[in-house]
């Protein structure tokens, strides 16, 4: 089975994240770039499916040169090879542009299964997997906390079936489809492995193919900041919250809290 796992480099959530004042896009230099946490679950799930059914795991990243660190991390976990979509023309692409660029690349490199994290910690739109399914015309199996692939799908191109549990507000939906398909995974689906020393060494030798906009047959008029479908008018840091009242519990902490809630008309 030919599995492509899309990973994204994001600013570390532990550092202060900013927008750039010049073009109002994410300031990638202000914070350390790390692999988006949910992407680690996606890589892990892809590796487990490969281990169960055979095939190959390709990492696909769209991002600037420094995103190669994120690619190495996924390769160190055990992915076989990577494709890095990198081109200045892609800078500032919104979800529509990003999904278009990734869909074009996926069509070019081929896949039986695309696996993603259900959202990124920076943009948090949670729409990319659905958009990819729409653009590729394949089943959308998103917000999965469990993925099962039928073994007959093991050989690339042979089709096969797939089922997931899709997390909902009330529990989950069981969803069935045929391959090829797009899957997105949620946090508790698995426990991502730590790269071993051997894995880290091996990752250095694994092939990383760099593709530009033209290589992936991406129409440059559909990507990049200037061609986005939306724009940021202005932005500002959220005003800090006013300091509150902190009391020490002297056996009446619950009652005092109730007084506070009453003063705010919650009780």
């Amino acid at each position, binding site marked *: 089975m030919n599995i492509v796992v899309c990973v994204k480099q994001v600013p570390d959530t*532990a550092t*202060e*994240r*900013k*927008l750039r004042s010049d073009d109002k896009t994410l300031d990638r230099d202000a914070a350390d770039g790390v692999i988006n*946490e*949910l992407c680690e679950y996606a890589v892990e799930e892809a590796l487990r499916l490969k281990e169960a059914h055979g095939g190959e795991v390709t990492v696909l990243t769209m991002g600037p040169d420094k995103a190669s660190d994120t690619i190495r991390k996924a390769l160190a976990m055990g992915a076989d090879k990577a494709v890095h979509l990198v081109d200045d023309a892609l800078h500032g692409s919104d*979800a*529509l542009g990003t*999904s278009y660029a990734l869909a074009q690349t996926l069509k070019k490199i081929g896949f039986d299964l695309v696996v993603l994290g*259900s959202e990124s*910690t920076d943009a*948090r*739109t949670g*729409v990319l997997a659905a*958009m990819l*399914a*729409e*653009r590729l015309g394949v*089943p*959308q199996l998103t917000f999965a906390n469990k993925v099962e692939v039928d073994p007959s799908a093991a050989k690339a191109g042979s089709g096969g079936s797939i089922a997931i*549990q*899709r*997390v*909902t*507000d*009330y*529990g*989950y*939906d069981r*969803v*069935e*489809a045929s391959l090829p*398909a797009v899957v997105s995974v949620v*946090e508790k689906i698995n426990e991502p492995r730590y790269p071993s020393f051997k894995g880290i060494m091996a990752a250095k030798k694994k092939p990383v193919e760099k593709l530009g906009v033209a290589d992936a047959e991406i129409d440059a008029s559909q990507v990049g900041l200037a061609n*986005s*479908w*939306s*724009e940021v008018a202005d*932005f500002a*840091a*959220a005003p800090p*919250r006013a300091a*509150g*009242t*902190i*009391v*020490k*519990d002297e056996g009446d*902490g*619950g*009652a*005092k*809290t*109730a007084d*506070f*809630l*009453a003063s705010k008309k*919650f*009780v």
Partner: protein
Amino acid sequence: MSEILVLVEHVEGQVKKVTLELLTLARKLGTPSAVWAGPGYSPEAKARLAEHGAEKIYVADSADVNDYVVAPKAELLAQLVSEKSPAAVFVAATAEAKEIAGRLAIKIDSGVLTDVVGVEDGLVADQSIFGGGVNVRSRVTKGTPIVAVRPNATPVEAAAGAGAEEQVSVAVSETARSARIVERVKEEKGARPELTEAAIVVSGGRGVGSAENFSIIEKLADSLGAAVGASRAATDAGWYPHQFQVGQTGKTVSPQLYIAAGISGAIQHRAGMQTAKTIVAINKDPEAPIFELADFGVVGDLNQVVPQLTDEVAKRK
């Protein structure tokens, strides 16, 4: 005034509060038309939508629309956009409705804004990003704006609308039928409100200590008619199910009141709750960062403070 389509969120035939919020918001910017997708439509539902300003109600209540993941609803909205040429499409910023919005955006070649907390004249949207750290104003520059608005962003106001019904037939395409929902599993959550919609959320963290002890969090929540949330430390430990996790990789909530008990207030937890209107923290460590956000805080043992608070709330009812 120009028509704004509002996709109705409903569960077991009941219109959810967020839809009434969306209708209220849409009324300020145009004329709202509700779009009902899937089974369960009823005269009560119609009345509720009309009471909150729906001038028209487009009803596509065939099972087809609901039996497949997301895609049929995006097709329905795309069809309505091309027939009615609305000024905008509003959906709730729930996981599923955002996905509908995303697919719709591609179908009608239009921009989409997610996690919107307010919309001004000219369809300029306020968004809160980076876990509430930065406020952004943005607008769609191509096509029909699609706006996903967070629950609790707008107070509901009633206002009569005509509620004129129009049946819509959708021919769900083969591609949209490719991911079939074969079973819906409902997990017991009692009578509590849904986490992202609730006006009050009571969350427990590592300080709660065990799965059993979460009952003191639940009791406080029930006394306030609140939803229960949890930090990642609590869901990681298996004390509370993951769908109740609040934070960077869990749910984002913006309730009127958020009570955090035994939660330190790590940046990734704050990302999911710091836009709450009022924040109360109960923590035994006076240095816990959650107190920086709190409008009211108690430094103490939650095992003492929380049950006492529950009793006091009950007494004052």
